[in-house]
């Protein structure tokens, strides 16, 4: 705690110091990447650092993992069907862009459809929660999974979505997917892998902002806002009750809290932000398919990110997502990963050298190329066994409190 004679702005600013650092890190990263690409280290940078497209995945998957952690890490109810809400957000936005949602005219700004989709997910979560919260533990996890699978199977075969529902639906090319203030053109930035806004020579200082970069910053702002809303809820009395439910639900009830409605509120809030993550994903990817939105493995990804980053710490899953995507990136050839780097670095004679009937080239192709799930699985198991609190949770344990509370004091100690 800060001393009482200090001005509150000062102490507040000090509390926010780690947040500022993280936000700055994310904000400056594309610039760092751009600078590195002009130095002799360019090939190393593209091999070992996550590319910008992967950083965008970090943002929306990070938000999804945070929302998953919001319910699973803070109330202790494992929401195994969380992909249902992510999918709801994604499909709502896609269908709205196609003018297929009754009552939402075609051309409604993305920001509005995103919030509408999130509200829908909020309502769906209340319905699912009303049934699921009668049960606890494994049963709750299975019930939410069951609901998600029903929605997955339904959306996979629902002819209304598109002519080939198994492949999902796409956003029409003319649709305006902009993040910003609705109806104010100059404050709107179109996002999308292919159709985003790009700016040349920004402010006349010779910096070009590519479409990917625009998407990165626009998504980043939404993720940041969502994070802070969730962070405020966790630190509010409501959040304290959520933690009380996790620690000892019987006691929380005995103290007089209506735990059922607290759980419902937490679940619906988490679904709201999961849907926002889904909407961001759909807007950026230009569509959604059942397998990358409603499927069980999407929840599984969030779970892995939350565990690695630190379940029960709100920012942890974002770092888990960063780790996850960094791994995916360096182990894929899509954007010059490790295998491409090794193939260029190692001389031909080494690559074709045989060790036990296997050339190094085969080895790279078999064990590195696109094998991220294998190593992530191993790392995940090691985390579960040996680092159950995850990255951020373990740092907190070491510092003896949240990073924002403890970091300044710790730094102070080292300065002397």
């Amino acid at each position: 705690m800060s001393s009482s004679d200090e001005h509150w702005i000062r102490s507040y600013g000090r509390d926010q110091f780690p947040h500022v650092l993280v936000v700055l890190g994310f904000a400056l990263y594309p610039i760092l990447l751009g600078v590195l690409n002009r130095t002799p280290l360019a090939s190393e940078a593209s091999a070992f650092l996550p590319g910008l497209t992967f950083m965008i995945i970090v943002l929306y998957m990070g938000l999804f993992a945070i929302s998953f952690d919001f319910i699973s890490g803070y109330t202790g109810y494992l929401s195994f069907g969380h992909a249902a809400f992510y999918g709801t957000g994604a499909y709502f936005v896609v269908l709205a862009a196609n003018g297929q949602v009754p009552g939402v005219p075609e051309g409604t700004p993305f920001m509005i459809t995103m919030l509408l989709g999130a509200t829908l997910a909020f309502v769906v979560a209340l319905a699912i929660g009303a049934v699921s919260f009668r049960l606890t533990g494994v049963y709750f996890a299975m019930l939410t999974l069951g609901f998600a699978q029903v929605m997955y199977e339904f959306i996979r075969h629902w002819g209304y979505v598109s002519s080939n529902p198994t492949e999902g639906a796409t956003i029409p090319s003319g649709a305006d997917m902009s993040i910003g203030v609705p109806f104010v053109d100059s404050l709107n930035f179109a996002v999308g892998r292919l159709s985003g806004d790009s700016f040349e020579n920004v402010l006349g200082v010779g910096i070009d902002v590519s479409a990917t970069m625009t998407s990165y910053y626009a998504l980043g702002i939404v993720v940041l806002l969502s994070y802070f809303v969730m962070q405020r809820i966790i630190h509010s009395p409501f959040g304290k009750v959520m933690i009380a439910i996790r620690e000892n639900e019987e006691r929380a009830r005995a103290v007089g809290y209506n735990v059922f409605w607290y759980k419902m509120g937490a679940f619906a809030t988490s679904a709201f932000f999961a849907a926002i993550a889904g909407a961001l994903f759909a807007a950026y990817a230009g569509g959604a398919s059942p397998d990358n939105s409603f499927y069980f493995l999407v929840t599984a990804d969030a779970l892995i990110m939350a565990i690695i980053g630190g379940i029960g710490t709100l920012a942890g899953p974002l770092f888990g997502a960063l780790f996850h995507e960094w791994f995916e990136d360096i182990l894929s050839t899509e954007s010059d990963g490790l295998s491409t780097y090794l193939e260029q670095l190692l001389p031909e004679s080494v690559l074709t050298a045989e060790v036990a009937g296997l050339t190094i080239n085969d080895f790279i192709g078999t064990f590195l190329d696109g094998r991220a799930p294998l190593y992530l699985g191993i790392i995940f198991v090691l985390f579960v066994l040996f680092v159950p609190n995850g990255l951020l949770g373990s740092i907190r344990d070491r510092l003896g409190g949240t990073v924002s509370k403890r970091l300044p004091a710790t730094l102070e100690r080292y300065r002397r």
Partner: protein
Amino acid sequence: MTFELATEVPLVIDTLERLFQPSTIARIIVEGLGKAAVYFVLAVGLTLVFGLMGVLNFTHGAMAMLGAYIGGLIMVLSVSDGTGALVRIALFVVVLAVVFALLTGFGSAFEYSLIRPIYDRTPMYQILLTFGVALILEEVTRIVVLSQGIQPEPPWSGAMGTAPAVFTERYDILGAPIRGLYAFEIVLGIVAVVGVWLFLNRTLYGLYIRAGSEDPEMVEALGIDVRQAFTIVFGLGTGLAGIGGVLLMWDPLWGPSALLAIDVLLYAFVVVIIGGLGSFKGTVAAAILVGIADSFTTWLFATGIVTFTGLPELTIFGLLVIMLIIRPQGLYGVEEVGGH
């Protein structure tokens, strides 16, 4: 969608008329029981493990996948075009035994080395650990299978092709053409039900399981080495998953593929939860219920009465949700089983 009396009512009458023909009923029941047998074998290991330890084993599907591939490998290596049907069936039985032994050992080793250290944590960590191991098993299988020039998905047709012709042909039962494999599956399913029943009711470890699913602490207090029982039962549950995988090897709806790791898991969950986690009787009843529902909705779709392609899957998961809404503990489950 609007309900138009003039067209809908005749359609309903027509459907009922077609449904109550002997050929339709025979088809739905025989196919349904065949599917039920598969569902039972896939799910029973999961329910045994949960009943005793309260561990929801997410590697279950991956183990079935391993069983399917190992079984397929042995069959492909030992069967040639000229091999007769009886020899193939005899080989199949041998494969069942081999896979059961291998996976029982593997499952026991897995429980002993990885799950045992984390029993004192919340059940969530056992879910997470087994889930992570399932991911690893699936990826390793993909790598190995690919290195042998077999596509991990769609299913491995080479292994499916080792089924004897008597199983792939269709036979006329009360006017309905039914694949011979279903009869074989029903027989194996009955053997599995009887076998597991005998194990549970006539052996010492069966007694431990039944007692442990009632009250694990009391069992421990009576001086029984519950940890050792855990290891053995986990092994047996894994072995049963492997047998389920071998059963899927010849089934044209499944077949050995990397997708089994998740598909089997999800279907096994449905059966186990509808039946009641940890209940043997419930698993039998739920397998029959899900099997019949599956064959009925497949029939509805095949005859064009319902055009929604995902109907069987949707129905099965729908059954799960409906069951959990009206009876959360499942058909024969005891509430709060497994000590949490």
